């Protein structure tokens, strides 16, 4: 595939930072090499010498002095090499990307920073952007300054509808339509990466929901020419994802091995399943005559529709606080924020089952009062 047509002029203009490239070469150099190129501060003068992290299962990760140096010193932009290797192995194991040899991976400061750099690599003001609707607000925040022409694709319980997608794209002529089927014996649906016969997928992974959001560690997998542009952007901005965070994640994955890692993700899954069930129970108890929703099969959000309310925006931003409940109005997730939206997003990740019950009860009161308000506004018009 040719990638140059996807790049903005700014991205095409990017040149490697000479200092960073030289510092990367240091990793392969002989001990005889006298390196005076990079402005690396002397790690001897960093005040942290060693560390220890106790895990919830009682085991400890020891950060001995040499490892602490890795935590504290500048590192390579694509990522701490042991972690990059681990993540590449994991990606290959989970997705077996058909064109793995032509792909690369970079560790980013959270997956959203990878997403931001990928979009900034490709979007010029006024470009067309295809998104599912509703769309994650973080993505809309990244895109907003570029005033894109959105092609929002409606979806159902399975996400984006292919017919709607084809219809939206029908004003352009594709050279050919690719139909791929791949039999992937996995417990979860095959990723786009795993079916990427053309090398057109950039995949954004995150550790925020399973290990820690505050460490700011995510990773991007994609075609080498596109990952390279992201690396060049990172070289002159944050330089690399936080090193201590990368080392901690790497040491943890090493301690766990594959078995320990999947045991942990199973535990996370089970936890959020319980949270979801508690949320559904609360919603069914208080909201069944007021809201509609589909049962989420993963994640941490319940997407509620309020058919009798014209627009949830003011109801939430102006009146929800008085009812002691806050959730996100659906308009925040819409490409066209001038249109009314009947949806709301409730997160069930942190709230206790007791508070879910209270929250849904309060929400029901809020909606009923809003309906009355809507009624009286309509009759006074």
């Amino acid at each position, binding site marked *: 595939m040719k990638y140059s047509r996807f790049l903005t002029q700014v991205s095409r203009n990017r040149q490697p930072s000479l200092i960073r490239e030289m510092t990367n070469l240091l990793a392969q150099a002989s001990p005889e090499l006298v390196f005076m190129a990079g402005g690396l501060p002397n790690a001897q003068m960093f005040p942290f010498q060693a560390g220890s992290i106790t895990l919830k299962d009682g085991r400890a990760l020891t950060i001995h002095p040499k490892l602490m140096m890795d935590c504290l010193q500048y590192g390579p932009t694509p990522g701490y090499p042991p972690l990059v290797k681990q993540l590449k192995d994991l990606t290959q194991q989970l997705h077996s990307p058909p064109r793995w040899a032509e792909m690369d991976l970079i560790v980013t400061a959270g997956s959203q920073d990878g997403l931001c750099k990928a979009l900034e690599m490709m979007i010029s003001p006024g470009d067309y952007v295809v998104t599912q609707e509703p769309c994650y607000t973080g993505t809309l925040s990244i895109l907003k300054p570029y005033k894109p022409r959105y092609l929002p694709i409606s979806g159902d319980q399975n996400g984006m509808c292919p017919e709607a997608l084809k219809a939206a794209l029908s004003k352009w002529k594709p050279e050919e339509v690719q139909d791929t089927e791949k039999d992937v014996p996995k417990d979860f649906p095959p990723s786009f990466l795993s079916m990427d016969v053309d090398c057109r997928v950039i995949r954004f992974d995150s550790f925020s929901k399973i290990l820690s959001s*505050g460490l700011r560690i995510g990773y991007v997998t994609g075609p080498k020419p596109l990952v390279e542009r992201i690396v060049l952007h990172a070289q002159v901005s944050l330089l690399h994802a936080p090193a201590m965070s990368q080392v901690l994640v790497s040491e943890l994955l090493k301690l766990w091995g594959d078995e320990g890692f999947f045991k942990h993700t199973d535990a996370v899954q089970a936890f959020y399943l319980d949270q979801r069930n508690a949320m559904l129970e609360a919603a069914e108890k208080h909201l069944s005559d007021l809201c509609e929703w589909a049962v989420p099969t993963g994640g941490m959000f319940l997407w509620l529709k309020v058919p009798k309310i014209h627009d949830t925006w003011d109801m939430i931003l102006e009146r929800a606080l008085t009812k002691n409940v806050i959730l996100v109005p659906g308009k925040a997730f819409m490409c066209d924020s001038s249109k009314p939206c009947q949806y709301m997003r409730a997160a069930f990740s942190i709230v206790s089952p007791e508070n879910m019950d209270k929250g849904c009860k309060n929400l029901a009161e809020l909606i009923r009062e809003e309906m009355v308000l809507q009624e009286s506004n309509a009759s006074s018009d």
Partner: protein
Amino acid sequence: MDYSKFISKLSSRRKPSCISELRRALDNCSPSLVWLASGMPNPEKFPFREMTVTLEGGKKLTLSKETLSAGLQYGPSHGYLPFRNQLKRMVEQWHAPPRWAESDLIVTVGNQDGISKALDMLLDPEDFIVVPDPCYSDFLCMLSSLAPQIVAVSVDDQGMRPDILQSALEKAISSGSTGIPKALYLVPNSCNPTGTNMGEERRQEIYAIAQQYDLIILEDDPYCFLQFNDKYLPSFLSMDVDGRVLRFDSFSKVVSSGLRIGFVTGPPPLLQGITLHMQASCICPPMLSQVLIHELLTSWGDEGFKKHISDICQFYKEQRDAMIQALKTHLTGICEWIVPEGGIFVWLKNPHVMQPCNPWNYVLQHFIRAVAAS
């Protein structure tokens, strides 16, 4: 000052996220508020329970449960609040900025990310930016992608020359471009790459010219603590009567480069542009890194911090002395240099070599050959 003229078209279209607006509700809410808004993962499922770090000298710092919790969860885009407050106190103490009440401070993912986002905020392609010549190479890399109009100003042993700056700005203004000179970038202490320090009088001259042409000053100061003679020259922030300075500080040379923590001080309307971009990209600076540095600074107090800086300066002074000795032994008569009074660089001139082609390609090829042969 009216800051709207400095904001690029792209940056002017950035808006705060709905969720951050909702978070304001948390400021004065009742304890019975049920928060179902942000997609925060449940920290019960984060596998880390306790963390202890050993400092130089053997002292141990154990993070409390709450502190470790803060270190592992999403935080505010402009920085972990206790850490920000700590840094504000330090900045006020060191610089006594004349407009402190109208200033603010944000934490960034390393000082360089702050600079990168400041450039994204300020520059449209037709705008002018003033840089010293020579200039920190990564800064030039940032500019090469944005491709603004560059006003390169030659330097002497104190940095940017005011007379050349003045004439270069006049030339830019009368060039007929639709853009305006927006910003001036410099590294006033132990400049990267030349190692020079800009004297107080020179700084005042540069500030006056920035006032005359209404420029934002980007004060990049990662080596401010690495000064060998205990002489601290007044920062541009400390003389900023107009509110036109964005100051970029770094912990990379004194605490850790890998933790990726820096901070920016300046007028809130300009910090806002950087913060909104951070909100959309990394969401917040790495929390564990912020927590660790906050705990370290708390444990040290002002005295401990001063002692650490003094130790660092002593160390790098010895490094400098050893370097100058080696240069004298092997390169006298071949190269020329000025002895740096701080920082980590010596800027060497070889008056005998004429530059063949692209000097970077030339150097890189030799370097790569040296690495490959080893």
